[in-house]
């Protein structure tokens, strides 16, 4: 499969005060395949937006190479085939949604009002297309942003925090739109903090921390190595003791009910067979994949995000205890 985006040793260095150099992006090797939805994750300040700006040809790398659709990112021919939805976009507020679409279409040399109307309809803005953008809600602004990103029927779409700050309904609408992009064969490059969304819609992800890629690959591979939750009833005390002696997994047992969390490294069938042969009633067997959130935290655990999460959990726990 061909690559929509490829970077090799991509580095972006800025001079800080005092003449010290800071590598915002450092030796980044990134491969995004054509037709996939690719998640680009990382804590704030990790270098995500800088990377996107380089891939859009808005800023230039200090070292290394980047290619988008097989060409230099700054190539105008590339810009005809890509689109971009920035984080927290601002649009010319004096314009209506329709005027904005016509303006952006004109930048592609497109003079097709019907296309603009069709795209606004696709993002459910038909009824509001003649209202000034200053009257649009955040969700509506995000949707008009998505509509403008489809004007040139792009092969590759860059989305920077596409669901950030949206209410649940707008959130689902945007997510569904992104899934439609994949069905249309478009490549989507998403930078987001919404890990549950990324886990749900992306084929592959890269996690960047302090300017460097710390994880990259398909979600199936990266999140492999989970566990299986087994719940059984009518478990005798002796059977529970037998299983406890086997070890290798965690379990709780009370009043004949056993709940076991069995890692993929342990033979789960053997434990289930033991339960069944001991006349226990196996009520559920639920495979639990590793969550992207766990992978993310592990990948950036030395970073402030991990510290923040710990702090948040402590506060959360404290709240719960108070409630009790």
């Amino acid at each position, binding site marked *: 499969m061909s690559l929509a985006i490829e970077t090799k040793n991509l580095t972006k260095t800025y001079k800080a005060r005092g003449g010290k150099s800071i590598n915002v992006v450092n030796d980044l090797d990134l491969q995004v395949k054509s037709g996939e939805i690719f998640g680009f994750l990382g804590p704030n300040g990790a270098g995500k937006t800088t990377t996107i700006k380089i891939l*859009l040809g808005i800023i230039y790398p200090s070292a290394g190479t980047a290619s988008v659709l097989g060409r230099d990112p700054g190539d105008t021919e590339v810009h005809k085939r890509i689109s971009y939805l920035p984080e927290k976009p*601002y649009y010319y507020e004096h314009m209506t949604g329709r005027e904005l679409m016509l303006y952006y279409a004109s*930048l592609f040399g497109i003079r097709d009002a019907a296309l603009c109307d069709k795209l606004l309809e696709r993002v459910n803005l038909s009824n509001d297309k003649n209202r000034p953008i200053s009257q649009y809600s955040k969700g509506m602004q995000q949707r008009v942003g998505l509509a403008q990103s489809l004007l040139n029927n792009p092969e590759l779409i860059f989305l920077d925090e596409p669901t950030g700050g949206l209410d649940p309904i707008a959130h689902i609408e945007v997510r569904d739109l992104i899934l439609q992009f994949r069905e249309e064969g478009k490549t989507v490059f998403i930078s987001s903090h919404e890990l549950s969304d990324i886990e749900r819609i992306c084929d592959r992800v890269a996690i960047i921390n302090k300017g460097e890629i710390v994880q990259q690959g398909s979600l199936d591979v990266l999140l492999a190595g989970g566990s299986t939750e087994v719940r059984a009833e009518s478990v005798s005390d002796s059977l529970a003791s037998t299983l406890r002696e086997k070890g290798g997994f965690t379990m709780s047992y009370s009043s004949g009910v056993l709940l076991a969390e069995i890692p993929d490294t342990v033979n789960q069938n053997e434990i289930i067979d033991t339960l069944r042969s001991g006349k226990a009633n196996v009520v559920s067997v639920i495979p639990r994949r590793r969550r992207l959130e766990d992978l993310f935290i592990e990948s950036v655990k030395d970073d402030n995000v991990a510290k923040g999460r710990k702090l948040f959990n402590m506060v959360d726990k404290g709240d719960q205890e108070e409630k009790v």
Partner: protein
Amino acid sequence: MNVILSIAKTTVGEAIRRRVLLVILLIGVLFLVIAPGLQTLSARQNFAVLTSFALGIIQLTSAVIAIVLTVYMIPNEIERRTIYTILSKPVQRWQFILGKYFGAIAALAMMMALMSVAFFAVFYIVQPEARSQIGNIAKGPMMFFVQMSLLAAVAMLFSTFVAPIVNMFLSGGVYLVGTLFNAVFQTISENDQLPGLVKGAAGVIYTVVPNFGQFNISNPLINPGTEIKGETLFFVQLAGYAILYITVALIIAVIVFDRREV
């Protein structure tokens, strides 16, 4: 070309909605309307005073509008991140700069036209005996427009590498020097009694800083007895001078902006 026109059109739309510019314009128009209040002199002097005062108001207001309008143009696009959506489309940076510039001077033309119309309406009412002069006086605001187009190009150039507030002082300073002191620097640069270094420095300033003062043709307009010799050639030369400086300023702006990380 379509891209430049589209960006220019949007720039005009934004500019004519900027409250600060409208307030400055309103103040200018207000001064033009109360200008006849200066009628305490004889009829001949009335004509000269009213015209001179009105042209001065148009010049000053237009210069403030040109600077305020232009210095925020590119920084605002960067700050609000609208520039990312534009530059990620097949838009070259030079097209963006030119679109912004042409939009700025189009908005400026509209605002200056409004002030001129206000002045001519007042003039028509209070100077019935000099109505035939309106066509001639109109050359004044037209030359100011050329002057302001040059000022806007200078401010646009500075806006590619300095912050808006610094740019205001920088562009204002260049305008002031180019309006009031250009002749002084020319005299110094041609004075053989001065040291070479002083002469050289004055010569550089005289050459680099546009001569804004030459676009002010108020004197021949308020003194009907005087006339510009070879008027058409004079205006063509002035326009050529402005176009040359505008072109140089915009080329440098494009070069600087092309390398700038936004």
